[in-house]
């Protein structure tokens, strides 16, 4: 099962600050919902265990995350390999930053994910909308962490 989501965040923070944030593993990790544990491997890699609560579908997912900055293109690719519930998720989220010149930055993001295994075949109906919600949450978190406004985790009850 393939899913594609995209969105855009207007971030009231200067480009350099956003760029630095997007290239710091523990900061990016801090944007994930329901994090059980995070283990930063190096400057571009971290592993994090996330509690996925999708309606009745609940369980822990382990995500291996690799950040690939491309300064010229002002892009950061977030490559994620996740596994849990007997299934696997391989996704690439590309964040493209635009310096608006007025001290704000636009973060356009696009995420392509391939989901394999029971969650795709049995829980696909459940998963799609929720995966979208989680990825959207992550990028709103980027904005909010950078501007200090709190967010509530996506409800999974």
């Amino acid at each position, binding site marked *: 099962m393939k899913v594609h989501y995209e969105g855009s965040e207007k971030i009231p923070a200067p480009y350099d600050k956003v760029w630095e944030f997007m290239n710091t593993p523990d900061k990016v990790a801090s944007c994930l919902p329901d994090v059980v544990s995070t283990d930063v491997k190096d400057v571009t890699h971290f592993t994090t265990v996330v509690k996925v609560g999708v309606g009745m579908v609940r369980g822990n997912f382990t995500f291996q995350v690799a950040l690939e900055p491309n300064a010229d293109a002002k892009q950061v690719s977030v490559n994620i390999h996740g596994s849990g519930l*007997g299934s*696997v998720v*391989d996704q690439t989220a590309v964040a493209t930053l635009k310096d608006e010149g007025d001290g704000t930055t636009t973060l356009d993001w696009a995420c392509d994910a391939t989901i*394999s*295994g029971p969650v795709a*075949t049995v829980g696909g109906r459940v998963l799609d909308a929720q995966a979208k919600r989680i990825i959207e949450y992550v990028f709103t978190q980027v904005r909010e962490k950078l501007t200090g406004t709190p967010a509530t985790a996506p409800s999974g009850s």
Partner: protein
Amino acid sequence: MATEPTTLSFGQPVKRKEDGRFIQGRGNYLDDIVLPKMIYMALVRSPYGHAKINNIDTSAALKVPGVKAVITAKELAGAGLDWMPTLAQDKQMVLAGGKVLFQYQEVAAVFADTREAAADGVAAVQVDYEPLQAVTDPYKAMAKDAPILRDDREKKTNHIWHYEVGDQKTTADALSGAPVKIKQMIRFPRCHPSPLEPCGCIADFNGGTGRLTFYVTSQAPHAHRTVISLVSKVPESNIRVVSPDIGGGFGNKVPVYPGYVCAIVGSLTLGVPVKWVESRTENLASTHFARDYWMETEIGATKDGKVTALKVSTVADHGAFDGAANPTKYPAGLFGICTGSYDFPTAFVEVDGYYTNKAPGGIAYRCSFRVTEAAYCIERAMDILADELKMDPVDLRRKNFIPKEKFPYPSATGWTYDSGDYEKTLDKALQTIDYKNLLKEQAEKRKRGELSGIGVSTFTEIVGAGPAHNFDILGIKMFDSAEIRVHPTGSALVRTGTKAQGQGHETTWAQIVAEELGLDVQNVLVEEGDTDTAPYGLGTYASRSTAVAGAAIAVAARKIREKAKHLAAHLLEANPDDIEWADYKFRVKGSPDRTKTMQEVAFAAYTNMPDDIEPGLEGVTYYNPPNLTFPNGAYICAVDIDRGTGAVSVRRFVAIDDCGNIINPMIVEGQIHGGLAEGFAIAFMQEIEYDEDGNNRTTNFTEYLVPSSFETPRWEVGNTVTPSPHHPLGTKGIGESPNVGSPAAFANAVVDALSPLGVRHVDIPLTREKIWKILREKGVTG
């Protein structure tokens, strides 16, 4: 003491002897068997359709309470058991080593005290996969740049084999010269037999005796015993395969599956009985599928509708391993029967098999090897030709039928049809449904703007594999066997190499013996499925049981009758030559009052035999059929289509079958009902679907649909009787005809309903959306 036979039952609707235990919940299915110290096995399966395995970490699983052991390909390789042969001269990984080739492929086996603990263990096994590009389309698999899926093979290509039959040149010439031609790609989608009871086994190796008792849901217990001996190296004499009551098979329970080998390895190494029962998901996603044929079909004909040539070029998608249960000589099974009921002067049929990242198989789902594909192909194509010729499909068929005088008929693809009277069968179908009136009704409906269709299928099947010179499984010739023992008190025990899965052998076989020996059908016990007691046979599939084992039973019974005749002569103090068998008794020619019943003779065989006749009354036969049998049928279906939703409702379905002589009409009718329902499901709602990443989208009954009583139409069935000339009982076999013949009838009816819109072909399954899309494209609004 012996009594006169109370029911002479041949040809009668004798109530099934096996029913008693089933209606009281006393059947004995695989999962009902519980052995002392028995443990449970569950399998770790791949979430990927195609991936490299970097590492398998079983340490966490081994810590799960109740888990006894975990094995992977590494352990199996040590014993040379990481691969096993399929029934089609290919080999299959038992547990994936190096890489996985289809989603849900077996990766590791977990053994535990309870089912739950085994499942916990499976969840705890950590496998590190590296995803590879999946190939789920055979046309992509044949591309130059396609990844090679089976790098274990010398041949570095995804092409498995090429098969052809018929005359390529004369067919090409006839086609190019034909005044009328049609050409159509006809797809038979991948589907699955999905019997209600999944597959399973219990491996019980007794270290004391060195014997392996293997309980398994098997349609072919002896073949399984031989394969297990070859794979496990356990001497065949030390293997006992027991196939208990089976909850439906439909071809799904012919192959040997990796889980079986793992369970055996588990029992051999752990020294306790190991039970493995697959889940529905495992059944649909990993045990062998059926069909998945792409058939490019060409017919040439004269302007007045006489067919002159048939060419079918086929691509067969076999998935990751060729698991087809085909005779060695026929990698595409009996697909050459695709000339059907028609007198084609020439034909050429070619099939190319390919590997893809899909579950393995190519088995015969309720049909003789690849015959459903063949029948669907020709019956669909004949309708397309009728459309091209602007002819009534019934007239076109009638015009091209093999005339009954031409039987035995040598077909352009090399078969010799035994018998048939296609006109008679068709006429009975037309009469039953009142075809003239049906056409009138349709014309009126169409005037009112309704979408109403009539579909006809006049198919010929080829069953009863088969003559030893042509047919074998892994080299074992496809004969079958029967052993009959008549007891002193005149009751009898029959054992055969077949194994029923609902077909009613316990009743039908008893009826044959009762008929041949003049016994009471209630006093004939039938026993199948235990290789320690049953004579070697190839099993039940391809409608071969009555055609082969049924014949064996008759022949064995006649051997008994011949010996009994001498005993009767002794009792009647007459010369054996003066003894005749009449009215189910031995009697002295010319003196009808001097008779002996089989019961009396049987008693004498044990109590009062002459010195020159050895005691006892038994007969054994291994029957090698001289030819296959060719059942046929004429099916007519009437449908209405909802312009709004594309929903099809089957208004009527008439099925007239000719399966030769009928032993039990009630059972034959039941087989037809069931086969039609499966054909209905295949035509309208069943397809094993993969996405381009190799995810199987149809791994349970909420996605792979089994129609309920609510969707399933009512059936109107009947028969004509054209006996097989070479079968001792003149029978042919019926189990599969309705599943072979009906998909085309449904499809032809739906296409006919859409034909006023200029539609000539739609591939099955005929889902609402497919039809809705056509309606909207053609400007029909609901």
